[in-house]
């Protein structure tokens, strides 16, 4: 029974891992790809860790597993946010079908635009 649950959990986790990878490969721009990795990837790891904790079923392993999951779920959205913010502020190229409705963010924009043009100059000045 335990083995069954473990097997399901880890195969499911593996599946999500593969999906995350596939999504990273197939989806059209970086922000959309992040939807795949942050969600499916985190879930994949979480499921597998859960499977392990079920298998060993000791309080130590369960605590460890829960800690891993907690860490992952605390950090994944923050990490995604930081990368996405950088993508946005540096004006990285996005899929051409992307709709922009970000007028309210202009104040933030100004600063980063200046930074960008400075950087472009630096880029040439090797």
């Amino acid at each position, binding site marked *: 029974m335990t083995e069954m649950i473990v097997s399901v959990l880890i195969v499911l986790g593996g599946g999500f891992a593969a999906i995350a990878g596939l999504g990273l490969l197939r989806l059209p721009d970086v922000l959309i790809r992040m939807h795949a990795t942050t969600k499916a990837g985190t879930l994949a790891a979480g499921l597998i860790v859960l499977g392990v904790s079920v298998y060993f079923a000791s309080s130590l392993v369960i605590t460890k597993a829960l*800690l891993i999951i907690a860490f992952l779920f*605390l950090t994944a959205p*923050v990490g995604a*946010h*930081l990368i996405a*913010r950088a993508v946005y502020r540096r004006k990285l190229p996005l899929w051409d079908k992307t709709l922009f409705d970000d007028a309210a963010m202009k104040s933030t924009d100004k600063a980063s635009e200046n930074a960008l043009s400075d950087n472009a100059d630096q880029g040439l000045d090797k």
Partner: protein
Amino acid sequence: MNSLIFSTISRLLVGLMLLFSVFLLWRGHNEPGGGFIGGLVAAAGIIVYGLAEGPGMMRKLLRIAPQTLVLIGLLTSVVSGLLPLLQDSSFLTGMWLFIGATETEKGLGLGTPLIFDIGVYLVVVGGVSGMVIALEEEL
């Protein structure tokens, strides 16, 4: 990084990471871990916090200058090695004290190797976070 989300979460993380780091240090003698790994985790926590809040806050968190922390760690390791010289053993010979030992259970083992490892831990925490603080302050 000046991100509200990040800095809020980082406060939470640093606590967890420090706790985990002490756990690693403590368990190192019997399970994976030890002073170096524990120290690195603690330093990683401090760095996460520092990346969110800036180097000034990292200094505040450490309270003493990282260099001092590093050298205190080094001295801790040295002193742990010197203790056995008092009972005329060689440098770095393990000295153990078992709290609550019974016939079957050894109880809670405290030994100079643990103190040694604490020294390592302090060196790594101070060293790594000190480097990052200096780097952040310079940039």
